[in-house]
Structures are given as structure tokens and as C-alpha cells.
């Protein structure tokens, strides 16, 4: 019943903030009840989000969640949270709004624009990306996602030599996962398009010109040996399509700094494979450097990629190295900061609404201050602190 009350939508632009002078008069539950109406917005279309909605939660419709984010993008923990709350709501934050604002004003005839999200660990880069991806999907963009680039480095799966270039290494399993994910996300958008040239994968196997793009992808999925080559072909096709104004492309790469690290993998005489020797990395780097129209790349640097000892700084040069910066420039650095005070209160309101916080003493002003203190404004820590409450 309580949740019904709180879901009243205020369409006024809210400079959401707990006004301290107003609240100091009484530290009871009434206070947050008064403010609670502003923590949620019913506008689920991200293209309508403006800076007025900053600090409010919006719910992504279930069909979108299932289609875009469920398969590969969300971590098991996030899936659990989704299951628990029975909804997928994210906070509208300034960095996402900023990027969306730029995307709205961007001239798409310009060559590919690169965004780089950076921020501290668990500061909310991924959910910012989620928000932007949802926005792009609502604009019928084609989404090409690499949920966790470091996976190519870390997981000890099959590494095979590339057929065309001997210095490169293929990752068939990862390529297959990538293709599956792409197909699921963009099935409806790309089913009309056909390939522009023939692709020869080996002496016997080739894909002819003019076959549907989906066939090419499903070929890659079924013939895992050529999955990596199919990814290359797909990227080329997407570039051509984008250049011909047929689609708009959003490339999302999480943890791009793993492109300039050593992988932990070995293959025969090669002692340690560098990420630059991976075919997938090369293909994506080619895409990022190209002058493709109608395309936007959104990358993020992640401290998790680095070893525990060098996670001191979260800034891009520290994580990517000079090579990375030189490769990526000119890029648009977007900082994803930790929660501000208003955002923190909003999130706590949301948690109270969704019963993540239920201890009565935690709902008081004093309790909120303590939670704020313990979390250190960090989103994930905030979630963890509230576990026993």
C-alpha cells in the first residue's frame, strides 16, 4: 500500500534536495514521505529525460530489459537484484544526461565520435552506459556491445591461430558469444540488410554477396571456427551500412584499457599473448579508428582490469597508458562521479520504497546520515551497507 502512495509522479522540474532547514524541524518519517514523491519518474522513454529529471529513478520496461540487457550485459548479481525488486530501475544521472545531450546535438556526418567514461570503482559507469544504450535503442540504433573486454584477456578459453594472419590469435568462443548477443539485440533492425561483398573464410567456405546479414551471423554462430572472421566481416558490413545512412551504430566497450594489457594466455611457442595480438581487439580498434559516419563509440576505463597493486588512480592515462590515449584521441572524457547528496537521498528513498532499507532507525535522518557516512557516497557501498538494515 505504501508503495502506491509513493509512486505519485511529480512532473514539476524538481531541484531535488533535502532542504536541511525544512527537515531539521522534525526528524520523523514524515519528512521523507514528503520528499519521496520526487525520487521516481514515470517517463520510461530516455529521450524525454532532461536535466530536470536528474536524481530520479526511471524503470526500464521489461521487454527492453529482456532484449537488450538480460543476456550478456547484466552480471548475475544485477540479475538477482532485478529479480528481487521485480523491476529494473536506474538513476538518471548527470553524465548520462550529458552524453545524451551531446548525442542529440551531434552532427552524424562527422566521423565516429568516441566517448570515454571514467570514474572510481563502483561509481556507476555501467549503469550510465545502460541508460545511454537504452536511449540509443529507443532511437532505433544498432547496438554493438562488448560487456567486459577484459574477459578476452582473462578467461582461459580456446585460443587459435588466425588463418589469414599468423601473428594474430582468434577467440572463437568469445566471438560466438558476441555474435549471439548482437543478433538478439538487433534482430529486428538488421534483418533486411544484405552483405555487400563476398567473404572467403577458407578454401571451401565463403559467404556470397547479397545474402542476408543475419545468415552471415548465424553462420558464425554455428561454425565456431570462423566466428572471429565473421565478427570482422560484420564490423565491415556495419561500417558500410552506417556510411550509407542506413543505420546508426553505437559501439559500447566496457573496460577498454584491457586492450593494452598482457593476457594471461599462452599458445604453443608464444609465451604470453599481448592483447594487441588478439584478432578481436584488432578488429575493434580498426572500427574505432575509422571515419565511419553515423557511429558513436562509448568506452569506459575500469580499474578492475588492472592488478590490485595498480588500482590507485582511476584516471584514463593511468589506466590506459599513453598508447591508449594517443589511440583514442580526440575523445570526449566524461567523468562519472560518486553520488552527490541529493542523489544519495534519492537512492535511499528508492531503497526504502523497495524495502531494501526497512529498519525504522535507519529511516530517520540520523540513520540516513550514518548510512551516508559509512557508504562514503559510493553507490555499491551504499547498497552493501544497507544489507543488514
Amino acid at each position, binding site marked *: 500500500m505504501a508503495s502506491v502512495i509513493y509512486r505519485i509522479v511529480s512532473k514539476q522540474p524538481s531541484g531535488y534536495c533535502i532542504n536541511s532547514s525544512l527537515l531539521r524541524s522534525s526528524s520523523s518519517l514524515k519528512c521523507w514521505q514528503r520528499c519521496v514523491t520526487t525520487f521516481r519518474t514515470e517517463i520510461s522513454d530516455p529521450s524525454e529525460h532532461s536535466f530536470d529529471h536528474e536524481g530520479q529513478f526511471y524503470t526500464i520496461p521489461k521487454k527492453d530489459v529482456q532484449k537488450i540487457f538480460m543476456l550478456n550485459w547484466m552480471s548475475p548479481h544485477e540479475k538477482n537484484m532485478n529479480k528481487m525488486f521485480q523491476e529494473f530501475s536506474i538513476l538518471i544521472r548527470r553524465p548520462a544526461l550529458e552524453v545524451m545531450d551531446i548525442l542529440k546535438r551531434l552532427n552524424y556526418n562527422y566521423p565516429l565520435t568516441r566517448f570515454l567514461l571514467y570514474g572510481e570503482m563502483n561509481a556507476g559507469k555501467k549503469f550510465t552506459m545502460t541508460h545511454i544504450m537504452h536511449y540509443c535503442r529507443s532511437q532505433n540504433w544498432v547496438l554493438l556491445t562488448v560487456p567486459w573486454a577484459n574477459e578476452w584477456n582473462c578467461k582461459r578459453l580456446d585460443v587459435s591461430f588466425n588463418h589469414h594472419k599468423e601473428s594474430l590469435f582468434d577467440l572463437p568462443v568469445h566471438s560466438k558469444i558476441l555474435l549471439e548477443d548482437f543478433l538478439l539485440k538487433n534482430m529486428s533492425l538488421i534483418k533486411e540488410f544484405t552483405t555487400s561483398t563476398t567473404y572467403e573464410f577458407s578454401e571451401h567456405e565463403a559467404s556470397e554477396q547479397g545474402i542476408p546479414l543475419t545468415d552471415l551471423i548465424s553462420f558464425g554462430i554455428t561454425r565456431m571456427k570462423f566466428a572471429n572472421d565473421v565478427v570482422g566481416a560484420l564490423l565491415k558490413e556495419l561500417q558500410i551500412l552506417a556510411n550509407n545512412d542506413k543505420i546508426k551504430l553505437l559501439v559500447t566497450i566496457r573496460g577498454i584499457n584491457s586492450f593494452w594489457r598482457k593476457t594471461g594466455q599462452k599458445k604453443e611457442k608464444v609465451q604470453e599473448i599481448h592483447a594487441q595480438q588478439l584478432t578481436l581487439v584488432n578488429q575493434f580498434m580498426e572500427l574505432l579508428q575509422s571515419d565511419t559516419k553515423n557511429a558513436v563509440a562509448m568506452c569506459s576505463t575500469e580499474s578492475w582490469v588492472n592488478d590490485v597493486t595498480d588500482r590507485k588512480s582511476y584516471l584514463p592515462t593511468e589506466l590506459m597508458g599513453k598508447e591508449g590515449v594517443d589511440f583514442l584521441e580526440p575523445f570526449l572524457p566524461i567523468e562519472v562521479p560518486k553520488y552527490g547528496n541529493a542523489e544519495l537521498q534519492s537512492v535511499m528513498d528508492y531503497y526504502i520504497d523497495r524495502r531494501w532499507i526497512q529498519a525504522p532507525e535507519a529511516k530517520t535522518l*540520523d540513520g540516513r*546520515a*550514518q548510512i551516508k*557516512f*559509512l557508504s*562514503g*557516497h559510493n553507490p555499491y557501498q551504499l547498497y552493501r*551497507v544497507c544489507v543488514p538494515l
Partner: protein
Amino acid sequence: MAASIPTATRSFIKFIGSELWFSTGYRTPSKCLTRTLSTQSVASTDSEVTRPKRRAEKLSAAMKAFLKRAKEHESKINKYTEEYELGRKHLANMMGIHPDEMTQEHINEAIRYLLPSGLFDKGSRPQFKHPKDILPLNFDFPFDKAGRPYHYQYYTLLPNYHCIMSEAAWRMECLREEEVRIGSTGAPPQEEMKHLSEEYEWMDLRTFLNYFKSNHSEVVQVNEHNRFVILMTKLSKMRLREQDVAFLKQFGSPKTSEINVMDTEEIKKFYVNEQGRKFRTKNGYRKSAIAQVTVYAEGEGILEINGKGIEYFESQYAREQVLFPLVLTSSLNKVDVHARVEGGGEMGQSGAIRHGLSNALLPFVSQQMVNKLSLSGLLDRDSRVKERNKPGQKKARKQFQWRAR
């Protein structure tokens, strides 16, 4: 008889004490002691005539040796004193000071300058002191010529202590008798008697030890002190005469109604910086960590630990430790905290901050909050540290595995 309780002077006690033994039939520890006391008491009261002649005159060998040593000691001290005086003049000359102005402090300073030594044991460094300070001066001679001790409690090893104790016991016995007498006969008391109006607080252990060491050069132990306190408390609860009260007052004073509280000036001391903000800095310690915590009054709840926020600590426990005093005094968001901490691990550092923070908070919170901090033990240093490993052992206490073969 009972009214004339002895004063503390040695001879008087000797005299009266010895008589008391006989008159009251007090259960004595040994009959032998009583006998010696009786003879000795006569000897000491200058009544040369009644001294028994079968002992005495001849000096025992031990006595002779003792006397010789005493004499030697005396001459040694004289010699050393002369040397000291001469040396003092010389030193004054060397340092360019007038000899009359040369005090012991000057001497110490001069010696520290002229012959600097870094030895850890300060007693082993070069010394230039009056023999009085180095040698035990009162080479007291507790025997008479016949080799009998002057003091009747000499063989208890702690004569003065036991003297006081026995006096207290004797007084108690007397008072008890008096009570019985009054109760049985209904006669009025011989002297005015009444209960003490207030409770007494006896010498604490340290002063007790010092008292006997400095006055009587006796080394008493904790047990002796405990017995002393028990006896005195018992005595003080009886109906007392004036002289008893006077006796008790030597060793204790009435308990003050004021409890020993924390120094309010110290608690409320703070400083003002250039911007006009009140602040107070305190050090905190835990394990091997040291924290310097500055608390600014009228703040917005900013926390800074070594240039970072609370994320300096990853552990939830450590974060809660820093939060603890702030929440307890409900001064979260009311003060700014700046901490610099080094050494130790995560918990040690947070504990050190907790300690320093609680102490630095004091001037900016109410007395009630100070009480809370004090009662919950936040103001005290946690003195537990890791016990060191011992050679030949695996850990501090754990020993290597060993099996008879």
C-alpha cells in the same frame, strides 16, 4: 592501664608495649619473644641497676664486626665528603663559577657537559654526588651492647609496620572490652565515645609503600597493605574515643563527598585558528598505529583521513569505528574531522582514529556526551598488543611439537 595507649615514639612503645603483653595476656606469637621483650624493656629504660648480669657485658663476635663496619662506614663517609667538597671547588674553578654558587644542579650539568655518556642506565653514567646521596646514611644500629634488638618487633622484619598493626589491634581489643563492660554493668563509659560520622579512606598502596620506605626503610608488600586496610576499616567502624580518632587520622582521611571527576579545564580546552574556527587536536593510539586527529567545531561533517574520505578504509568494521564516537555524541554532520594516521594495519589505524577523535571531540559536546564517551571506554587507550615471539617457541606461548623418544 588501657587508657594510656602509647604514642609513636620508640622507647615509649617499647616500654608500654612490653607491659601490655603481660597485663592483658594477649596471645603472643611465641613465648620466647615475650621473654626477650621483658628483659629488653628493662634494659632500655635507663635503669642500669636492674639489668640482669648473666648476659650483657661481653660483646659477641657479630656485634664486634658490626661495630667495626659501622665505624668504617662513618669514616668512609667523612672521607668522601671531604673529597666531594674539594672536588666541588675544583669544578667551580674549572667552569668559571664562584665556589659558593656551585649547587648540585650546577655540578650535574657540568658533568653532563664535560663527560657526556649515552649509557642507557642512568645510574651507570659518570657521577659526581655527595656521598649522602649515594650511600645509605643511616647505618642504624638496632641492637644494644648485648646483641639484643632495641625494637620489640625486630624479628618480624617489619617492626614499624607490625607496631602500627598491633597498636590498632590492641585499640580494637580495648574498645571491645569497654563495650562489653558497658553492656554488662551499665556503667557510663570512661571517656566520651562515638561512631565516626563519615567513612575513611586509607592510604593507597603507593603512598603506603613510600611512607614505610622513607620513614622506616622497610619494604612492605601488597598483602601487608591489604591487611592494613582491612584492620583499619574494622577499627573505624567501632565506637571510638578521641585518641583513637587521632590515631586513625595518621593513616587516612575522611572520604570526600566530591568524586574524582575529569579535569574540566583539560576537557574544554580548544584553540582557534586563523579563520576563527575552534579546533582541538589530539593523538590517538591503537596497536602500533598513531593518529593525529583535529576536530573543527561547527562543521558540515567533512571527514578527511590522509587526504581521502572514509573510503580510506575498505573494511566495514574500520568505518564503523570512526563513526562510533560521532554517533554516540550525536555530532555527526556537526563537526569536521581531519585525521593523519600512520603505522599499523587497518583496524589499528581506525582504532587510533577512534581514540584520538573521542578525545578531540570533548570540548564541543555536552557533559552528558562526555560521560557517555568516558563510560563506554572510548577515551582510554587500548593497551593490548601482539605478544612477542619467544626464542625456542613457535609463537608467543605455543611451543614446538615435542615427543619423547
